């Protein structure tokens, strides 16, 4: 039972990271990108490749993963978001990010192989420590660190305040002289680096696996929708709740219905509280 709880918390922390990445992208562009999970997938796959195949030391590989994530974030903005937002059709960004996500997943599958490969140790630690193993606590630490850093960024720095301004009203922000295009690109770079970090930290839990992206996109979104769109605290709570619930349910029912249970949670929350636990109420546009 304790094993189920701790595994759930670790997986939930990874979902929370994905939800935070969604939040950062959403704040400046009002886009929920399908590529969110794929950023973390790239972070994990490239981290494993840097360490195992190229023999880079861990800190360098970590920086490499961050750069890969940030570059992919920027690429998402550049290819899939920028042109589409200019057209103002609300469905098109879903299609363009879906197309990009598919391409990245297939390219990773062709290059890296379709088998999950083990992720090397990040911190030297004996394998016999059981539940104190780094693969359980690393994602949790990273998720909490990222949420705290994000809150500090929003509250204490000028750029953070620009993000908040854009999420409140992008047109008004533009009218006040904020370079909205550049701020959006910056937010995608930050989100990409966060996703890369999450994928790197959770690599030992998930393995370096090309199909991780789609599951993470879905589960991160469920965590986000449960916690409430736009809320960082909600992302943490939603991720932890989703991870623990599905892992405990797996413990009692069996692993076959893992996905069914997490979607059940999503539907329940959306029916009872459509804005999520900590989300802001949306006004119906007329």
């Amino acid at each position, binding site marked *: 039972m304790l094993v189920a709880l701790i595994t759930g918390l670790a997986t939930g922390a990874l979902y929370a990271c994905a939800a935070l990445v969604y939040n950062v992208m959403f704040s400046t562009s009002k886009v929920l990108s399908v590529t969110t999970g794929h950023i973390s997938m790239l972070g994990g796959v490239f981290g494993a490749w840097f360490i195992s195949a190229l023999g880079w030391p861990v800190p360098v590989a970590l920086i490499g993963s961050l750069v890969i994530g940030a570059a992919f974030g920027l690429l998402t903005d550049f290819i899939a978001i920028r042109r589409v937002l200019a057209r103002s059709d609300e469905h098109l960004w879903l299609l363009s990010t879906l197309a990009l996500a598919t391409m990245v997943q297939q390219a990773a599958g062709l290059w890296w192989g379709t088998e999950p490969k083990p992720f090397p140790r990040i911190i030297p630690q004996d394998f016999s420590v059981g539940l104190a193993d780094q693969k359980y606590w690393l994602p949790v630490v990273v998720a909490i660190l990222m949420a705290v850093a994000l809150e500090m960024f929003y509250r204490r720095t000028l750029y953070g305040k620009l993000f908040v301004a854009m999420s409140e009203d992008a047109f008004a922000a533009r009218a006040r002289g904020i370079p909205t295009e550049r701020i959006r690109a910056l937010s995608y770079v930050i989100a990409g680096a966060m996703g890369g970090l999450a994928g790197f930290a959770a690599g030992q839990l998930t393995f370096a696996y090309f199909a991780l992206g789609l599951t993470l996109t*879905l589960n991160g979104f469920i965590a986000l929708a449960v916690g409430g769109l736009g809320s960082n605290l909600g992302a943490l709570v939603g991720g932890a709740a989703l991870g623990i619930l599905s892992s405990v349910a797996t413990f009692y029912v069996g692993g076959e219905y893992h*996905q069914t249970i997490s979607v059940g949670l999503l539907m329940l929350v959306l029916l009872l509280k459509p804005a999520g636990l900590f989300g802001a109420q949306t006004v119906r546009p007329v």
Partner: protein
Amino acid sequence: MTPASRKIALALTVLALVTLPWWSGDLYKLHLAALIGAYWVLIGGLNLVVGYSGQLSIGHVGLLAIGAYCFTILAGPHGVHPALAIAAAGGLCGLCGLLLGLPSLRLPGFYFAMATLAFALIVTEITLAQGDLTGGGIGLAVPSLPAPFDTPQGSYWLILAIAALVTWLTWNIARYTWGRGLIAIRDSVVTAQAVGVPVFRAKLTVFVASGVTAGVAGALFAVLQSYITPDTFIFELGLFFFVCIIIGGRGHILGPLLGTVVLTALPELVAPLAKLGTFFYGLLLLVVVLLVPEGIGRVFEVIVEHFRPRKPESHVVSPDLDRLARAIASSPSDPR
């Protein structure tokens, strides 16, 4: 194109399709044509959901899987007549569409897409978990159809007939009030509501209809595959259906049909594309979304209009003075 030449073109196409078994050459091409037909039965219904009402369902492969398994289980171990089993597959998938659509069609775009994605994953999970019923990962052998349809030619004609029926049905829905209402929902929900389109009911109805066609398509698809496992119904297949419609053009019928034909046949005929598979679909989707969001069909329209510009119709708006005078004269309350 004049109505007469349009009729001739239609008749020639039908003739070519019906006689395909005699001139296609080998059985593999015939199988490919039958596969395109089975896909089109699903995509034709999905087109009403994605192309007309703008609900981005990326998880229809789940309904296809339910239809395929329903047909296989009923017609195989339970010995139900295949025709009845196909009807049952359609009915069951219509019901599943209703159950899926009731909560999820109320959600906004991205939420709906994620709900259908989750549905597809859940179906895979359940087919793997319920090993007693579905054979689990090992899969099931699909029973063949009865006498006139058990040959490749016979199953081709059956699929062709059903595909033609689906095309005719969707065309009828699309060109009357219903289709206009769906397009209104796609372009602006608020406006559609304001002019009296029953938004939720219209969306739910076409979603259930697309469920029925997906179930029938699943049964036909299973017959063509002759052996089904959960791996047959990977998520990428659902993406493929979706890409066919978007590439063909939203709000058309011919465009998605061409998209289905080209996207199914191209990887089979051009070998290097088959290796790239889904990557190629993703690339195509990205290019179409970025360059011609209206779909490839729009490109043809632009080319045609370039060579034969449409004459702008002029509507003269002038007051009908006689009628106005009569109306004033016959008005009972004369304000003085």
